Each structure stands twice: as structure tokens, then as C-alpha cells.
């Protein structure tokens, strides 16, 4: 009887288990992700990618380095970046990793989608932003994965992309910008409002693409002048022309709605770590009576002997000579009130509109300075005369740009102030090497808030010469940094490719100069 029972029960169980096994493929239907789609249209990807590109490279907080290394800003209290202590691989790698895994990847998806549908209005703006982002990477780090990058594990690609040299990356930049500008001829506005920068306008993106190409051409001009000259000419000749008027400037508009704010204002609302750098304020803008100074900076809380506008020495906080006395922090200038939101946690209501201040990505001022330098160096026609014209136009464009931006903050720069500035003997264009230095100095001032390009340009030109190694620097860093160290994540996850890149490029430290960086470090710092 018992054996029968066992038999019966055993058969029932066996049957049940068999039924179980048959049903088990069905339970995998539970594994379809209910939270996230497997495909999306390109517009929402573009909005996100444009925002991330801007906040990453113009945020001054993600990297916490460009503006300090190039001494437009200085740190008080915690001056680790100023002194090159907190700018090593582990401090900067988040920027590299974030750029690749976020907006560069998404832009690559958009390009694929746009090319699949044959819509240049979608893919060409994405090519432009992708090139802009990759340029920050190669100019800050050097060689980088480019050709094999951003392909995941799709067929034919490895998980360890090889590094392209900076020279090869630039060559590819020129080719892709050339094609993007041409493809946009006759293209429709496909992105529309999903493009926060130009509202999807193909004509505007043509100007952006050509201007970016001009910037890149000038950047390599000390290394490969013929190529630079040819690319500059091609950029000028490409359909759409360059950004030479502030009306065409590339701005990223911040809603300032508390969620998406200008990244400078987001930092300043809760931290009081930033001051103007002595290099920008005391050594350049004050002697030149620059009317932008009250916009760039605000008067010190408690002005000392150096007057209301006074920059802090980069890296000076840590210096405590025997019996030495720190310069009181309250005698130095904070960044301009235009960058401050309506309230901060630590006190004074310094500005009102900083959270919605647009970020300037590419401007007419910079383009005019590029053309001025090109004319002076004979890369384009016109010589010193044309150089002077472009130089004055660049200064005027910058003055007008900051006047436009400052209106909302109740500040302005009058045409008379601009004229007065231009009329000064030290500003009047001098031509020759002196002229080139004037152009580079004015570009440095105009690039305020774009510390990355200011730093790249200083490395190319050694101007302003006031930028020097800070006191009490990290002993391992013996020159003003000329690049960042490769991420530790690359050493651990892409070690073979990285090692090959370092072999070709030089030691992976902050001092190694990159392909287009030809100035001797000794003369520069």
C-alpha cells in the first residue's frame, strides 16, 4: 500500500515537474525591461548630448582645473587644483569617462540614425558637437581612442579600442567637418526645438562647423602650417561662412529653472571657493582699464591696498613664510555678479540672473582673433592691415558680447567705453610679433568662461607670459600643466592600447607636450 502511494505520488510529481520544465521558457518574458526602451528617436538624444557637452567642458566644476591652470580664476582656502595637486589622473578621469560614455556615445547614435535616414539636418549638428567634444579630449590628453571608439561590442569591434594619434584625430576632424558642412546644403531643419543651440537651423550649423574648423586649423598652425593654411581657407570658403557676428554666436541657453542652471551659478550658489586670479585681473585687465572687468569680477568685500578689483595669487594660500601673513581673503574679488544666482548659502545676494546666463561655446570674437592672427602670419591675405581690422573687430565683438550678456544683470559696456579701450596706446595694434602677442592676450581675455580653449591657446602661444608655475606646487609637476594624465580606468581596462599610445606620445604625466604644442616649456613657464 505504501509502495503504491509512493508510486502514485512520484508519478504526480514527475508529471508536475515535466509541465514545469515546458513552461519555463515563458518566464523569460518577465525579463523584458519595463523601465527603459530599446530604441528612441534622435531629438531627445540631441537635447541631452548638447546639454552635457556644455556642462562638461564649460562647467568649470567637473574638471575643476582649466580655469585655474590658465589662471583666470584662483582658489581660496582649498587650493588643490591651483597647485596641481588635485589635477592628476584620478581627479580628471571622470571628465574623460563621462564624455565618452555619455554625450559622445549618444551623438554617435544620432549620427547613425541620421545617416540611416539620409537626414543631414540630424547628423551634421551631431558631427559638429562630437568634433567639439573630441577636440577637448585630444587637446587636453593627446592621442585618444577615436576611430575604434564608441562602438560598444558591436560586430568587429573590441572592448579595447586602439588610440589614434592627435595628428590622425585632427585629420579626421577636418574631413568630417568638411563633409558635414557640405551635406547641410539644402538640408531640412530636422531637429527643430530639440536643438537648444540653433533650433536646428542648417545654416547656423554650417557657420558653427566652419568656425570650429577654423579654430582647429589655427591650433595646429605651429606644427603644420601648410595644412592649417589650407584648412582655414577651406573653412572660409565652405558653404555658410564663419561666425563673424555676435548674432551667429553659439550659446547654450540655460533655462535657469532650478534643474538646468548655468553650471558656474550652480557652483557659486553653495561654495565660496573661487576668486579672480591675479594673473587675469591685476596683471592684464586692470593696467589696460578693461571695461569688462566689472562684469568679469566684482569688487572685494573689504578692499585693501590693491583697490576694489584685485585677484588672488594662484597657489598662494599654502604659502606661509616664517612670520608671513596671509593676504586676507576679503580683499580679493569674487567672479562677477553676473554669474551668481539670486541667493547663495553663505551670504550676500550677489546677482540675480546667473542661473540662466547662456554659456558661450563659439563666438565671433574668437573667429576675428583667428583671422587677425592668420592675416598677420600670411595664412590669409591682407597682412598687418587686415590683422588690425580683425583684431579691433574681435575686441569690439567681445565687448558687445559681454554687454549683451550683462544686460539682464543691469550692467553694460557702452560703445564709448569700447572706443576708449581701443584707443589706448597699449591696445592699438602694433603688428609683427608684438601684434601677435596682442591678439593672443585679447583672445585670452575674451575666452573667459572657456578655460579649456584659453589653456590650449596659452600652450600654443605662451601668451599671456604672466602665467607661471605656482609656488608650493606638487613637486611631481615641474611646469605649468600641458596636458592631463590618462585615466586609471584606461590603464586597467584598456592597458595594451594605452601603453602603445604612451610609447608614441611620451611619458604620461602633466608635462609632456602634445603634437601641436611646439613651444619649449622653458620659455612658456
Amino acid at each position, binding site marked *: 500500500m505504501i509502495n503504491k502511494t509512493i508510486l502514485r505520488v512520484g508519478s504526480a510529481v514527475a508529471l508536475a515537474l515535466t509541465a514545469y520544465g515546458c513552461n519555463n521558457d515563458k518566464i523569460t518574458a518577465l525579463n523584458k525591461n519595463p523601465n*527603459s526602451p530599446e530604441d528612441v528617436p534622435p531629438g531627445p538624444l540631441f537635447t541631452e548630448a548638447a546639454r552635457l557637452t556644455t556642462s562638461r567642458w564649460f562647467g568649470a566644476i567637473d574638471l575643476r582645473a582649466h580655469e585655474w591652470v590658465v589662471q583666470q580664476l584662483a582658489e581660496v582656502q582649498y587650493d588643490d587644483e591651483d597647485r596641481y595637486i588635485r589635477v592628476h589622473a584620478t581627479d580628471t578621469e571622470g571628465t574623460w569617462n563621462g564624455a565618452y560614455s555619455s554625450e559622445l556615445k549618444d551623438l554617435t547614435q544620432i549620427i547613425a540614425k541620421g545617416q540611416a535616414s539620409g537626414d543631414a539636418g540630424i547628423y551634421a549638428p551631431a558631427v559638429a558637437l562630437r568634433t567639439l567634444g573630441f577636440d577637448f579630449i585630444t587637446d587636453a590628453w593627446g592621442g585618444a581612442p577615436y576611430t575604434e571608439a564608441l562602438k560598444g561590442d558591436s560586430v568587429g569591434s573590441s572592448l579595447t579600442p586602439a588610440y589614434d594619434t592627435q595628428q590622425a584625430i585632427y585629420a579626421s576632424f577636418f574631413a568630417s567637418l568638411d563633409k558635414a558642412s557640405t551635406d547641410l546644403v539644402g538640408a531640412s531643419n530636422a531637429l527643430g526645438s530639440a536643438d537648444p543651440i540653433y533650433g536646428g537651423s542648417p545654416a547656423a550649423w554650417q557657420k558653427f562647423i566652419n568656425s570650429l574648423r577654423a579654430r582647429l586649423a589655427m591650433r595646429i598652425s605651429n606644427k603644420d602650417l601648410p595644412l592649417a593654411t589650407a584648412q582655414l581657407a577651406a573653412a572660409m570658403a565652405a558653404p555658410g561662412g564663419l561666425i563673424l557676428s555676435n548674432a551667429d554666436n553659439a550659446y547654450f541657453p540655460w533655462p535657469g529653472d532650478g534643474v538646468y542652471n548655468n553650471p558656474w551659478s550652480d557652483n557659486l550658489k553653495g561654495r565660496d571657493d573661487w576668486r579672480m586670479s591675479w594673473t587675469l585681473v591685476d596683471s592684464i585687465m586692470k593696467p589696460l582699464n578693461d571695461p569688462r572687468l566689472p562684469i568679469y569680477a566684482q569688487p572685494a568685500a573689504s578692499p585693501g591696498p590693491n583697490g576694489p578689483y584685485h585677484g588672488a595669487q594662484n597657489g598662494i594660500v599654502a604659502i606661509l613664510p616664517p612670520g608671513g601673513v596671509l593676504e586676507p581673503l576679503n580683499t580679493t574679488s569674487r567672479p562677477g555678479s553676473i554669474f551668481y544666482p539670486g541667493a547663495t548659502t553663505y551670504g550676500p545676494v550677489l546677482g540675480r540672473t546667473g542661473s540662466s546666463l547662456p554659456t558661450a561655446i563659439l563666438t565671433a570674437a574668437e573667429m576675428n582673433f583667428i583671422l587677425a592672427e592668420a592675416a598677420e602670419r600670411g595664412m590669409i591675405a591682407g597682412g598687418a592691415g587686415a590683422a588690425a581690422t580683425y583684431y579691433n573687430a574681435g575686441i569690439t565683438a567681445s565687448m558687445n558680447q559681454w554687454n549683451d550678456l550683462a544686460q539682464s544683470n543691469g550692467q553694460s559696456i557702452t560703445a564709448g567705453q569700447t572706443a576708449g579701450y581701443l584707443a589706448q596706446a597699449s591696445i592699438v595694434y602694433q603688428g609683427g610679433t608684438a601684434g601677435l602677442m596682442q591678439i593672443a592676450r585679447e583672445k585670452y581675455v575674451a575666452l573667459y568662461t572657456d578655460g579649456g580653449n584659453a589653456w590650449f591657446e596659452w600652450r600654443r602661444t605662451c601668451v599671456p607670459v604672466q602665467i607661471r608655475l605656482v609656488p608650493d606646487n606638487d613637486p611631481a609637476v615641474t611646469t605649468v600643466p600641458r596636458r592631463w594624465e590618462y585615466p586609471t580606468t584606461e590603464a586597467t581596462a584598456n592597458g595594451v592600447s594605452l601603453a602603445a599610445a604612451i610609447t608614441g606620445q611620451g611619458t604620461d604625466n602633466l608635462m609632456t607636450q602634445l603634437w601641436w604644442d611646439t613651444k619649449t616649456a622653458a620659455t612658456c613657464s
Partner: protein
Amino acid sequence: MGMTSKISRFLAVAGVVFGLTPALAQAQGTTISGHVTGAGGAPVVGASVSIPTLRVGAFTDDAGSYSFTVPASANGTTITVIARRLGFQPSSATVPLTGAPVTQNFSLSATATELQGVVVTALGESREKSRLGTAQQQLSTTELNETKTQNVVNSIQGKVSGVTITGSGTQGGSTRILLRGANSITGNNSPLFIVDGVAVSNASRGTTQVGGWDFGSAISDINPEDIATMSVLKGPNAAAIYGSRAANGVIIMTTKKGANSGGGMRTEVSSTYTWESPSILPSFQNLYGQGSGGQFEFVDGQNGGNCDGCDQSFGPKLDGRLIAQFTSPKDANGNLIPIPWVAHPDNVDSYFNSGHTLSNTVSFSGGTDRANARMSFGSDQITGYIPNNSFHKTNALLNATLKINDRLSSDASLQYVRNNALNRPGVGYTTSALEGFLWFGRQVDMTALKNGYNENATLNNGPPDREFNWNYNYHNNPFWLANDNPEADNRDRFIGNVSATYKLAEGLDANLRTGSDIYRYVINQDFSHGDVRAGTIVNPAYAGGFINLNDYNNENTTDLTLRLNRALNSHFQIDAVGGAATRRSTYNFNSVQTGGLTVPDIYNVGNAAITPTLGQTLQRRQTNSAYGSADLTINNWWTIGGTARNDWSSTLPVGSNSYFYPSASTAIVLTDMLPSLKNRWLSYAKVRASTAKVGADADPYLLRTTYTGLSTKYGGLPQFTLADALANGGLLPEITHSNEAGAELSFLDGRITFDGSIYSKYTENQIFSAPISSTTGFTTKSINAGKITNKGQEFLLGVTPISTGGGFNWNSVFNYGHNKSLVAELSPGVTTLNLGSNGFDARVEARLDHPYGAIMGNRWLRDSQGRLIVTAGGLPQRDPSCAGYQCYLGTVQPQWTGGWGNTFSYKAFRLYGLLDFHEGGRLMSTTNMWGDNTGVLSRTIKGREADWNNPGVVVDGVHADGSPNTTAVNPETYWQCVSYNCGQVVEDYVYDASYTKLRELSLSFEVPHSMANRFNASAISLGITGRNLKTWTKVPNIDPEFSYQTGNNQGIEDFVLPNARVWGFNVRITP
């Protein structure tokens, strides 16, 4: 599901499972009943009272009572009745059977440990320990409740060999438990918890070292007073039957059940009151106040004065000189008047309160032979040692058994738990209260902050919309944070199951059971306007902000099992289980947060001025299983067992979602096999061995890469980004292999016992997110790779050095566990995986060919003789070869852990003490690092013994040319250099993590039986208890025992609040 009650019923009905004796003896047999008591007359619960020769018996109930009937066929004989219980020496009595009821009481004396007896093992099966081929250790309710803790996991600290338990540091925080080391590289290493047969969640809403709140781990919901037994099944061998999640071991708890009380009611009361205080606080200096470079002057606390926005203590000497301070009165012009600059040595200490905990459990039980039940109510009322911190827990548990007829019976268990926490202590750099005291002015008067947190900052010329404080740039008033930014959370939880058992035939039962663990957990974090902590969500332009998190978790298991317990003949006994189970789990998460409110104090999404960020996640998974287990015992001394299981998982791809895993074990009682081995020294010897495999599935949704949408719109526009994690459509199940062997020996009639194991295990084909180069566009990819090997030994040694007839007894138990986890393989091309970091160049990694949990960071540059090589300026410098976490600074794994418990009993008095050992391993302390950097720790007086820059520090080192360093550096420069500024070198802050804690101490007194009886109780005990009374460690300034969550990110300390030192008093009334 009521394991114990089922057992009791089964035994009561069928007799102890050894024989063919018909269960339902109709004849007028002899009924034997009585009480089994321990020291001082306390009832012994769960003791087995049996007549081995007749194979009948019963277990004692909650009151220590038992009753069973001997078949009439035995009338006229005289038999021996034996009472046995793990942890007690057996006792026997001779009883003549006449048919008339017999009352036979037993008084058992405790032994250090006991190797023989009945234990609860996998699937809640009750087995003779002598037949187990695997290692397990069982704790009784008494052992668990020696001293009261809120988390049952803390109750086993120091008591089980091979178990590593790390208390959280904070009250109500997460406790990490690890059995025999970590198996998984990045996944879950927590054992599976089973309460009455149902898997219960131990989910941790922990945090990182960087900051946040530690919301504890879910197993703390179980009331330790409701637990009858807790079995720790250490390896996967013992647990293969529970499936995937048992790879890390299983902790099986059975709750107390009702019993046949003849209709009467039994009431049990346990009440504890304790006082808590921080067990360790840093040692601070009191010679220099706030400031830098010896300077300080308060004007407005926001850089308006000289360094009044600074938050270090490298300011002027605290010599009573006159300096304007945040507490200064104002002159006629509203300027702050200089007042004496003096130390407030108790300023951190006085921030903390004395915590209080009142814990009560009352239970009622009773019933008849057909139906019985036990219900209990428990309550914990905790006021923490942090201001405005409280924690309330309410438990209610009902266990009921109904015997419908002789074949069909049903059990049900329903447990409701409600947790309410207010203002849990923040942990980590951004949120811990200690952060505000390590970046601090040593002159700050805490009383002024406490009295002034409701005042406006204009009192000392600070910003008009801030609370009164000592520094407005980087800090909030700590009392304002505690009182005006309350964190509140509550969890409502039901754990319940219903089962029906049908007796198909003698020794063959079918059981159908379904049970769920369901909870909703709501966390509200409110932030007032003016919160300045790093990473705060609060936008100062608005009236505050809030975060609301809402978890819903539901796990249901339904299983059908067949159990066979039969003696085939006098030589063979078979115990077998076969079954099928379905597990379904659903996790649903919703969140709302905004950094801007329109009107203050209304923390509702309708009041959001900034578009709220919303979160929503739904996860579902299902596993179907078929399993079987069989043990064959031959001649009562040799047991051969095996288990087999097949799982089908929803999370693996079709084609790979079915996986099978078996185990085998054997146990031989040598002293029964060869009785001649027994002599006056050796009383018992058993050897055992087992081998097992356990398969495991993946997390949901790893097979397809998806796009992530953002709830916040950019100017009304949607945004998407392709996920950073690259999916893998070809995942396979992961497999853990384990082998173990052990011996159980007893000498001198149980005066000395030894239970030891050696084991070796590894998990291969691990499913984890391998870091890949971000240049692929993705930062991780789900892969099958990697292997961790664990090898170790553990033993439990029990000694009863003194046991006198006069009632004096000394029992001593020592347990030891050594485990070595080695990372043997990672994914191809990957040499390391980051497990966690404090954000300051120290991290803990799974690094190839290193012990699991390797601390990596920077070291100082040294010459071949080990001397520091200093810079021209006289400062030490970083070894450049360490850049990028390349230097190994030690492992977080201890060399061994152990516990030594001693019980001294004399008549009604009992003294118990437990030392908990953690020997070896390293930890990195961020508190020490920043405490040096800010100059608040007492050792930072070095270099400024005379004045702020005098005499300076001459670093003991040499220049690159070998010449000795003679340069004196400013002490502020020196301390900032060694702690952070000279290349973020963490070497000096990596310490030997060894500690010994006086974990538990209790002195209890059993009220005389006669007096207890007057209160209608069988026993009343009174006790004084203490926990964490003393810590011996080489680590300065912090509690070396800490965890932020139950995950793998362990070993880097970051402003952790110390574990509480607890003193208390308890009363226990047993019916």
C-alpha cells in the same frame, strides 16, 4: 511556516521518527509528562525527551513542558527516559510503566557545547546532529538574548565560528554578515535568511563612504525574543537545497510556537531598559583655535573677517587673548566685541546625548491538542545618542496550528512589523555629524550652538537668512541640522505563510505552503532653506527641498513537498524530501525630489518651486525549481546523503536558463561504529565530509541594452541617453563549488567538546559588471568571468572546567574562524575592480591575485633603507609609482575572527562574558586623515608646541642625495602635507584593524522558584547587561568596527559614528 510546531505535532502524533511504531496508539498506554528546567529552574525549550529503546518521545514547549504516551504494549516494563538538549548535559531517569500517568521532571546542567541532539536543518527538517554531513551551528533563544540588541544579526557576534559580523557604528544601521568569506566579486555576499521556512529580505538601503544615511538592513525587523532557534548553515553544502541564494550560507530561524496547554494561557514577558553612549570619540587638541596661519577674527563668518570662513584649527593659540568670535556681544555700531579666546574641551562630547532604549515583549500562548497558538507583541522605543534621533519598532506575531483530523493539519504564521525612525545619523563625509566636528574650530562653544540654533545669523552679523552658527561658508549649526532637517522613515512589513500537511501514509507527508515577505518602506528627507552640506540638493533661492523614496518589495514562495521518514528495517533509516517551488519577486521603487520649495515647511510635491525629479523602477523575476534530498542512515552510525536541484530562472536567456546542481555528504559516528573506541577519555567521535555545487542566476534586465529617459525636461523637451552598461544576451548561470570536512569530538563525558571544519570553495562564471574602457561608449559590461577562492578552517571548542555538585559551574566556549579569500580570476584583460572609495585616493578593490578587498593607494617615496626622501622644502613626497591606485596597502580581510564566551553559574546567579576578536586585516581611516589636515586632533600639536609656527616640524628623512633633512616646516603645512596635500598619500592612515571587544557582559539572577510561583510564573530572571563595554585596538580616534551597508564596499572608514556602549537592565518572566 511553523517548523517547530510541525515537529512537535509530528512527534506527538507519530513518535520520534525512529520507528514503525504506529503513531495513533489507541491503547491505554502510559502518559509520561513533566518539566525540563535549567539553571535556577528556567524552562528548557526544545529539549528532546525520549525513550530510545521504544523510539517514542516529545520536545518541550515554550514552558519547558513535555508529554507523550508510551504504547500499552510496553506496560509492565521499566524503561529509561532521557532528556537531551544542545548545550546541556543529558539527564536520564528510570520509569516503570504501569498505564498510570507518570510525572517525570528533569533538571539539566548547561555544558559549554554539545555535539549530540536534535537540530533544525535545511527545509526546517529536524535531524539528529550526529547524522549531518555538513557544518552547522545552532543557537537557542537564551544564547541570542544574552544581551539585548535591535538587530538579531548583532546577537550572534562572537558566538558562531567562521562568521564575520561588522556592526554599523550607527544605531539602527546596517550590519554586515559574511559566512566563510566573500564568494561574489561584486554581487551579494549576504547569507540567505529563512524565517519559518520563508525567505525574508535582508535588503540594505545603505550608503557609500561619501555620504548619506544608513537605513539599516531589513533582517533587523525580526524580534530576537520571538526566535526559538537559529541555525547557521555555513557553507553551500548545507544549503544546496535552498537554491541560488544559499551559495553564501543560510541562517534558519524558527519562531516560538504555541503548545497544548490544556486550554490554559501562558504569558511570557521580557523587558529591557538600556542606556547608550558613543563608545569611542576622537582625541582632540585644545591649544589652538579656528583659523589658518595663526590668524583669526570673526566679522561675519563668511570670509568678511580674517579666516572667519575657514574651518581648520590652525589659528591663534587659545591663551585667553581677546578676539572677536561668533559668540561675541555687539558694540553700539553693531560690531562684534573681542572676547577671551579659550578652549572648550568638551565641545564635541557635549553634542551627544545619552541614548535610551526600552524593549518589551509580551507573549501569550495556549491551546488544546487540536489547535494551539502563540501571539506576541514586541516594542522597541529608542532614543539615540544623536540629538533628535529616535527609533520605534512594533512587532506582532501570531503562530497557529490546527489539527483538522488525524491526517490533515494546517499551520499559519503572520508577522507584522512597523518601524519608525526619525533623524537617523548621517554617515560619510558629506552627512556625518562628525564631519562638522573634524572640520571645526576647537574654540567653538557647543552650548552657544545648542542654545542658538533657532536664532538668526544676524545675531553675529552672518547672512540674514541663515541659522546662527560659527561658520557660514561650509557648515550648518549641527543642532539646526538635527532639528530642522529631519529624516523620517517607516517600514510596514508583513511576513506570513500558510501551509497544509496531509499524511499520505505512515512516515510520508505531503505539504503545500505559500508564504510572502511584503514590505513598503518610505523615506522622507526634508531639507530646510540654508543647508550648505556638500552635494546638498537645496537651492538657496528657494524655501528648502525634500527627497521622498518609496520601496515596495514582495517576495512570494510557493512550494509543494513530499517528506519520507521511515526505517526500512532495523538497519536502515531513510529521510527524504522531494519538491517543487516557485519564487516570484517584485520590487517597485518610486521617488520624488526637489531642491526648491515655494513655501517653507510643506514638504509636498505640490509645493515644489523647482520641477521635481521623479524616479520609477519596476523589477520582476521568477524562479521555478524542482529539488530533492535524501539521507540514508545505516545502523544509526553511518549516514549518506545527497541533494539535487534544478532551477529555471527568468533572468537568464532562453537556452541557458535551466541549471542543475547536486551535493553529497556523509557522516560517520566512529564511537558507534566501533564502540571499543569509547573509553574514559573519549566519549564521542564523528567525522563528516561533503561536496556541493550551487548555481545562481543574474539580476533582471541584463540581456538587452536600453536607453534611459530623464524625468526632468529641458525647457519642456524630453531627454534620453543610452545606458552606460552594455548588456549581454549570452549570460550563463554562475556556479559555486564547495568541499568541506569536519570532525566532532567529545572528551570526558562532554566536559570538553570540539567541532571543527576545513573547507575550500570557489565561485566561477560569476555574473558581474566588468569595467570596460569608457572609450567603447560604455563603462561596464555584464559578463561571466572571474573566480574567488575561499579556504579556511573553523572550530568551536567547549570546555567545562568546573562543575561541582555544589552548584558552581563554569563553561567556556571558544570559537575560531580563519578564511582567506583570493581573487583568482577577473575578466580577460581586467586586473582590478573597484569596490569602493572615499573619494580621496584610497579605494578597496578586487585585484587579481590579491586577497579580496585590497586597499590601494599612495605611499611615501623612500630610499632603499626605508627612509623618507623629502623635497628641497623638507616635506615628504609621494612615490610616483603609486599613481592611480597602484600600491597595495593591505587587505581588509582579518587573519582570524573569534569569540570567547564564559558562563559562571552558582545556584541562582549567572555571570556571562563574551570577548569578540578580530585579528589582522587593515582599514583606512578618513577621520584620522582629515583630523590631521584640519589640526583638530590632539597629535597635531606636534610642531606647534610653543606657538602656531614654533618650533615647526623637521621631517625624519633624507634628501635625494642621502643627506639628512634639517629643514623645519610650518606645522600647518606639515599636517596638511602628510594628510592630503603632498600627493594624497594615505599610507599613514592605513591601520592594523585588529580589535578585541568586550562584546557582552551580563549578570543574571533567577528568582527562587517558590517566589516565581507566587507570580504564577515558572521562572523570573533579573539581569544587568552590557554591550561593547571596552575596545582594545591600535587604531586611534575611531571605532575600528564599522560598515555603511551590507555590500562589498568595506574597509574605508569615513566619519563613522562609533558603535554604542550599552548598559542595561532586564526582567524576564517565564510562564
